[in-house]
């Protein structure tokens, strides 16, 4: 456990310059919110420090609740989480993107394993990954309609009313 | 033993035609069953090879796009015909060969090579990628085992002083078994036979995990059935040749069955004992070890004969 806390401390020191918020949701986890512009620099800092390895990229759709009457409608957002692991320690870089600005740079130049994860993220959430060299579908069907992103909450299957939580 | 039959029966029923095909199917079953038992499987029923063949014959023949139609249909027929022709010169079931003349050993071996050659051509005739790779491998393998195999069968021929299969057979029956006199030659002949029949571990030309069925990928119905029959006939002819030459000749049907089955048992055991060789490994093995061993055996025989005449 001591080494885990040490590792998290080291990661925190590395990531501090880029962070907009830092918290520890669980003893073995460190979560750092960063701005999309700082993503490459933050990942580069972790890799240069040889801190762990990229374990997963998680997309998280957070559609906005309908605003109350008279209030301005808040914009829906997608969180992109980069999970780095070292031993038992897990560091999460959290980026929040609005639907209209769903663009991130690719980190596959720094961490080559990211390529497949970013590809999946692009297909499933419609997050544009700038610099990702692959085209076409990775896992969806070849005739999948453009602009339909299955893991967004708004997707509930074809030919079905959009309302309701029951998916396809 | 001798048997005189009208020529038309010789060609169509015994020992050519029907008998060859039937015994080919039986030996295919024996081979499959033995391999299965060695691998702890149950294996096919006795009727299975016949059922497979009938099923294939009854199936719709699909002509793939991009093939030369005439060749596509002619090649399987040539393949089976070549194999059946070779059968006329070997002492099947211990009887004298149906046809015999000086130098028929070369003809029989040539006819068997024609079978392999047609399979290679059949693969090259299609535009399927698996077939093309399979055809390349089939022909590559042909060039690697053919010379050592031929050399290993020349050993007994030189010892007997004749290139006529029936006379070598008689010679082998009257003298010490050649497997003892020429053990290296027997080894090369046995492995050569496996290469010729494309049995594991020399089955790179039809390695299903890489190139599906190799040269045969595009064949479905009758063509495939004929090729398979050709292979079965090749199996029995190969077994007959090797056991006639090295296992003390074939004088009667009982001897034939016992000796060829014993050989098949060894073949089946060898098939199960190894992982598949890559085609480059096969070629390397044959040219480095197989050809060299066969030459060594040949030199030993020639030396032995000449020294014998001197003293």
């Amino acid at each position, binding site marked *: 456990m001591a080494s885990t806390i040490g590792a998290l401390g080291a990661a925190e020191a590395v990531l501090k310059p880029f962070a907009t918020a830092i918290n520890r949701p669980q003893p073995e986890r460190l979560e750092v919110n960063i701005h999309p512009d700082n993503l490459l620099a933050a990942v580069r800092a972790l890799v240069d420090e040889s801190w762990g390895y*990229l374990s997963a990229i998680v997309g998280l759709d957070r559609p906005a609740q309908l605003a109350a009457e008279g209030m301005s409608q808040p914009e829906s957002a997608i969180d992109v989480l980069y999970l780095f692991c070292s031993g038992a320690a897990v560091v999460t870089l959290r980026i929040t993107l609005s639907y209209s600005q769903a663009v991130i740079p690719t980190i596959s130049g720094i961490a080559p*394993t990211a390529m*497949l*994860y970013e590809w999946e993220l692009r297909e499933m959430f419609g997050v544009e990954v700038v610099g990702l060299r692959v085209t076409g579908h990775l896992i969806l*069907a070849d005739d999948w309609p453009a602009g339909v992103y299955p893991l967004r909450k708004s997707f509930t299957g074809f030919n079905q009313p959009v309302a309701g*939580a029951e998916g396809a | 033993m001798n048997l005189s039959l009208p020529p038309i029966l010789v060609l169509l029923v015994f020992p050519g035609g029907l008998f060859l095909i039937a015994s080919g199917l039986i030996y295919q079953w024996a081979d499959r069953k033995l391999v299965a038992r060695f691998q702890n499987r149950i294996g096919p029923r006795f009727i299975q090879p016949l059922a497979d063949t009938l099923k294939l014959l009854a199936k719709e023949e699909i002509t793939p796009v991009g093939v030369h139609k005439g060749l596509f249909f002619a090649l399987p027929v040539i393949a089976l015909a070549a194999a059946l022709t070779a059968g006329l010169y070997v002492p099947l079931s211990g009887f004298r060969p149906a046809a015999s003349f000086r130098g028929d050993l070369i003809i029989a071996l040539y006819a068997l090579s024609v079978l392999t050659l047609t399979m290679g051509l059949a693969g090259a005739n299609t535009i399927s990628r698996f077939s093309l790779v399979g055809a*390349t491998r089939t022909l590559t393998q042909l060039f690697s085992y053919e010379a050592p195999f031929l050399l290993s069968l020349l050993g007994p021929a030189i010892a007997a002083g004749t290139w006529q299969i029936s006379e070598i057979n008689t010679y082998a029956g009257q003298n010490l078994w050649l497997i003892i006199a020429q053990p290296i030659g027997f080894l090369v002949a046995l492995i050569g036979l496996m290469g010729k029949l494309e049995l594991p571990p020399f089955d790179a030309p039809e390695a299903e995990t890489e190139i599906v069925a190799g040269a045969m990928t595009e064949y479905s119905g009758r063509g495939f059935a004929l090729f398979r029959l050709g292979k079965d006939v090749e199996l029995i002819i190969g077994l007959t040749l090797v056991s006639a030459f090295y296992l003390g000749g074939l004088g009667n049907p009982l001897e034939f069955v016992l000796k060829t089955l014993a050989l098949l048992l060894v073949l089946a055991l060898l098939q199960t004992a190894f992982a*598949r060789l890559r085609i*480059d490994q096969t070629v390397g093995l044959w040219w480095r070890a197989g050809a060299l061993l066969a030459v060594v055996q040949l030199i030993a025989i020639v030396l032995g004969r000449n020294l014998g005449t001197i003293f």
Partner: protein
Amino acid sequence: MTADTNKFVIPIGPQHPALKEPANFEFWVDGEIVTGASVRLGYVHRGIEKGAEARTWTQNLYLMERICGICSHVHATAYTLGVEKLAGVEVPPRANAIRQLMAELERIHSHMLWLGVAAHEGGFDTLFMYSWRDRETVMDLLEKISGNKVHYSANLLGGVKFDITPELAAEVHKGLDFLEERNRFYLKVVTTDETFIGRTRDIGTMTTEKAEFLGAIGPTARASGVARDIRVDAPYLTYDQFPVKVMTHTSGDLHGRFIVRIHETFESIRVIREILDHIPQGDLTTRVPRRIPAGEAVSRVEAPRGELLYFIASNGSEKPERVKVRTPSLCNWSTVLSLAIGLKLADMPMLLSGIDPCFSCNDRSIRLKRGQQDPQVWSWEKLRQYGIEYYR
């Protein structure tokens, strides 16, 4: 990853005898030498991550178990660990020990399955038949414990369903003795058979640096000397009480991957015996609330194929907000694509199987529903009529 049209491309898949599950690989060959490779996945995408969002926490347990038939227990374990972490529930030690026991039995079953598949790809069908025959033993043990050979369903949220009675323990001991003896034999075959060594040694060699760079995980990485194993690095369940040793090999080639997996099998056998002899006493289950408090949790376990990561987000309701599954097979693909170049075509099936790919691991997404008027969708009647007309 688009193929150059001037190349001679050998397609492997989606339907191919080398693949037991659908995927598509294209190998560009020059004669027998591979000069390039590409992959296309998703033929059996089932929409499990999306489906999970529409099901309750308990229902999802069964859904997750069905991601993979071979490592079903480990998926369910990763899921329950994540949910229990979010709920703040402490699972009784006996339940955790039984989970670990099942996970290690599953590892034996998976590694023996892999041994057979890999041998088959190399044209060594005898080893394939033998190892699969003996694998039945471990499947029988799993059946005796849980009643099922494949989907054991041992996990519950907050515990396990099945207890290990002393009679069962004796049977498992007996089965393990047999398995250990058989695996010693396989180790001997793998390390001494000349043709087999010829097909595996120095094939697809990956250095430690390359393995780290490409993000290889699990036995594939360990065969290249990367000592990374979640069971040791971040002990979960009772892995701190019944520790395992990390098995590594330095050769980095296919041969090393065989040796590492067989050694891991021995290690699993050893640790199962230890668990059986010193299993903690106590309850099997504890209560888990129907609504899981809001939050996010990451749970990582070591599946037979490598690190399996679950990211679970809850919004405080009866259904999860998001379940992200990062399966081990996905990480190892890049190693295959990069190692393929320069090898022979004949090595490809073995190289592919060398990472022990699990396609159902990769593909988890969507089921298509189209309208009745779609010209591509035919009713059974129409299809039958077409068949009759066609052959008339």
